[in-house]
């Protein structure tokens, strides 16, 4: 079993196997609402491959990153709901 990496989502510490995509790691941590739509609906990943932009979160302070295209890294700080 490889060492798990730790990252935080909205301040809550989560763990995932290295190499997991951030979107997959967040879903496993029970996060389903990654962003809010224009009218305030919760949205989560749909395409898993960088097409739909529904998985956008802020990563280490950088807004609008697609969580499905980012491998999870130790110490990543993620903010949802943008």
């Amino acid at each position: 079993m490889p060492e798990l990496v730790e990252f935080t989502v909205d301040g809550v510490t989560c763990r995932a196997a290295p190499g997991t995509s951030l979107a997959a790691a967040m879903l496993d941590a029970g996060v389903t609402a990654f962003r809010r739509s224009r009218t305030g609906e919760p949205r989560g990943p749909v395409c898993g491959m960088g097409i739909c932009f529904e998985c956008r979160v802020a990563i280490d302070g950088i807004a609008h990153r697609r969580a499905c295209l980012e491998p999870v890294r130790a110490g990543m700080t993620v903010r949802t709901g943008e």
Partner: protein
Amino acid sequence: MSDASVLETDVAIVGAGPAGIAAAVAARAEGARTLLLDSAPRPGGQIWRHRDPAQLPASGRRWIERLSGSGAEWIHSANAIDLPAPGVLIAEREGRAFTIRWRSLVIATGATERLLPFPGWTLPNVFGVGGLQALLKAGASVAARRVIVAGSGPLLLPVASSLAAAGATIRLVAEQAPALRVYRFAGALWSDPVRLAQAARYRAGFRRARYRCGTWIVRVDPVGSALSVTLTDGRRIWTDRTDLVAVGYGLVPDVRLARLAGCSIASGCVAVDRSQRTSVPSVFCAGEPTGIAGADSAVAQGRLAGAAAAGARRTGGAASRARRFAARLDRAFALRPDLRALPDPATIVCRCEDVSLGEIGEGWSARQIKLYTRAGMGPCQGRVCQPALEFLRRTGADAVRLPLFPAPVGLLADHANRDEGDS
């Protein structure tokens, strides 16, 4: 030029799926300088998406090993966003643009999934079929989760079977096409032993789940943290509880970059000759953009395209076989008109801009829709809503708007300045 933001190559390849990988290996075998780029962090495309090469089927592992031994330059996490002039490709990585100067370009951008709007399709835990599979391959866990797989096309079967293998409980696989057409299609696969063996394996993989043809999702509603799914077979309506829904209505060739290059497109597919040459000089195309025909065809086309792009004389029948297969697929899994009636006026069609169907006038062109409602103007640049609207409202495909992926404001201008400053 010393500026690291301009790269020079003989053959530039966009898309590192089976087609792009085979093209890169073939171009290198001809001795051409070769550069391969993809928005994903690892090569493999849709079917060979992986975290660890050990998870790959033997053929995928072999091709990815060949690629890494080939000497082709591999640029990951980079989006091709513009083709401003012949021989010039602009790409973006981590918010910065760079230029690739090429002698030949191979477009191997694959396909995207067609998602159709229905009430509830924007809820969290409702995914595309390929989408849920991609997340699974990226490490998501589905163990002990209930899943309903629905939509249309041969992708439903392998995805249901890989979800089941990962411990999910498949409640139902609902295929909208009528059984007769699906079985006739499957019957025709007798002529293709590889595909037949695949089909048999998939069926065996989720024998315990029900596969129902002529069945589709009408709506999805949240119930606590679960989902209530309303299904119909056109006669009866019923509901089922699930944790996750995977629903997708087949694959659409991703012809955006090809369209940007000015390549001629016929019936939604990039037109190519027996060397995978497009209508534009020095621009080649391989894999799903020429017609949905699967990974083996993508590899065969990629080999031809890579060799031809490197200047070798190579021809083959891969592209015309792919076109025939794609046409059979389209007939077998043609979308039933009932699906047009699923969204109500309040159903969101454009997920980026939250435009509902009711805001879109009957008979509007793709251009009018964008102008009046901003549908298709959000970050996905119409990748999701455009194929949906083409089906719902029979709008034609619109001309591509630049850039292909949303570039941070000023990025292209920045880039031009940097270019001048550093040269």
